[in-house]
């Protein structure tokens, strides 16, 4: 046996010992349920089937078909898209502004500000949703009070179907803009100073430096952050669950909220699994096309 073969065999054994348990857990409690979920989505598994498995029917893609012709599914998808399309740019914009401000040489007490801006990220959604529900209260909430001082009539933030989703968007952005801020800050710190030096010598203004050095350098990181935020925002659930229970008039029912209701309120597991997989398919398609777009852009 050569001096290399023994370590190799030892390494393999060690690897299975060290990684084995985790892989088994992932296989049993993640991979297997995901496959099972797909199988479930092809049946009409519901409360009756839980009582007696003979009540189960194989329906093929009928669940998917039924979902695609249910107005509520499209409402949920629309609500989710609304949340994503408005929320993602808002969140990233705010994160970028915060990161730029924190990165600036002119800023003092950076540690304090950084901590303050990040604090909402580590809080529990349920806890802060309760606070925000109160801040948004039509009569006794601070937001309407402040608006009142500048002469704006009280808005029924959580009761008016037009304002409910914007309220949730503001809440979600508040909760996690700090996360991307940290990432962008690190990326900003990685941009070499001599680039800025050269630009300054050439007489470029601050704004020009921003446009021609900062933003392009941040390109890849911005893209990655956007995709991650997009993917996360598509999975909107906790906020509507705690703040609005999907209302008013189902204006805050997201795709996952729909899945939760179908699955755990009504025990229509077949339908609920179909919802989950539809969401996954949409997400997958979106992220792959975005990545392909980015790679194409990056190559050129």
């Amino acid at each position, binding site marked *: 046996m050569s001096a290399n073969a023994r370590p190799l065999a030892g390494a393999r054994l060690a690897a*299975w010992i060290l*990684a084995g348990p985790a892989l088994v857990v992932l296989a049993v409690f*993640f991979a297997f349920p995901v496959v099972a979920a797909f199988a479930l989505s092809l049946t009409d598994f519901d409360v009756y089937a839980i009582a007696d498995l003979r009540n189960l029917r194989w329906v093929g893609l009928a669940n998917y078909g039924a979902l695609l012709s249910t107005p509520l599914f499209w409402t949920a998808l629309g609500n989710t898209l609304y949340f994503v399309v408005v929320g993602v740019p808002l969140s990233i914009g705010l994160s970028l502004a*915060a990161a*730029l401000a924190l990165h600036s040489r002119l800023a003092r007490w950076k540690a304090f500000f950084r901590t303050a*801006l990040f604090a909402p990220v580590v809080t529990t959604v349920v806890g802060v949703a309760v606070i925000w529900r109160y801040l948004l209260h039509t009569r006794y909430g601070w937001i309407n009070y402040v608006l009142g001082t500048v002469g704006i009539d009280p808005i029924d933030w959580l009761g008016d179907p037009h304002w409910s989703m914007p309220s949730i968007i503001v809440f979600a952005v508040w909760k996690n803009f700090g996360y991307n801020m940290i*990432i962008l800050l690190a990326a900003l710190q990685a941009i070499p100073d001599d680039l800025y030096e050269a630009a300054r010598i050439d007489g470029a203004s601050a704004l020009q430096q921003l446009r021609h050095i900062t933003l392009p350098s941040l390109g890849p*990181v911005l893209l990655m952050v956007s995709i991650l935020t997009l993917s996360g925002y598509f999975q909107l659930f906790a906020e509507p669950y705690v703040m609005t229970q999907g209302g008013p008039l189902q204006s805050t029912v997201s795709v996952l909220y729909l899945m939760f209701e179908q699955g755990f309120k009504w025990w229509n597991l077949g339908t609920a699994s179909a919802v989950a997989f539809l969401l996954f398919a949409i997400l997958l398609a979106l992220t792959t096309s975005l990545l392909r777009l980015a790679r194409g852009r990056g190559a050129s």
Partner: protein
Amino acid sequence: MKRLGSPLLVHLVLVLLAAFSLFPLLWMVSVSLMHAGEASAYPPPLLPASPTLENYRELFTRSGIARTLGNSLLLATAATLLSLLFNVGAGYAFARLPFPGRERIFRVLVLSLVIPGQVAMLPLFLLLKSMGLVNSYGGVLVPALASIFGIFLVREYARTIPEELLEAARIEGAGELRIFFSIVLPLLRPILVTLAVFTFLASWNDFMWPLIILTDQHLQTLPVALAGLSREHVQDNELMMAGAVLTVLPPLVLFLALQRYYLRGLLLGSIKG
């Protein structure tokens, strides 16, 4: 180098953002110290007229929050320890131990990060039911024993361990496991802290899964109890704020104490990804 205009502008932005971020949290503490009904006034009060601990007292005596707090603490701690147990070894193995299919398996793991966890929840529930784990601590902990993100985190960090160090130990005849326990683990200490912080926070804040798997009231965790409280006690805002403080404060404190590790992990996980 002048950036983005004057110091005034920069500080204005930072102060506004800080106020935006902190006001709800500070106000939450303020309301939790108010008397029942005091906050339902127009104009809304900023500070309690006469601070009182009655809301907290009510939570601990009537709403049994002590038990819930205990549950959250217990579960978060257990999840943290278990996560270290399962994920650290795996992360190192993926980084430094050659085994067949290593790269392919890892790529599959990273790809599956795209799958929303909720997809698996329903069959997972049925699976745990057949194992008798519904409505138990085990049901909450078992699915989260291994985490792809955790493995990824440890792997990224472990890859910075110089290969020569390991080679030297191998030449001296040390077995792989001994190398892991005596050389690698000490080097991994910073990322262990990071992983622990991440896991603790994630477990403490987890809402959807404990909501589904725990039916017994005395097993509930804080977020679930608070959600239930807020749906029942729509009127008692001061009480709910006190509950919110109890739910939100520990993660904040933990974060403040261990910021460095948390932020480092965040960056490791994201930029490399």
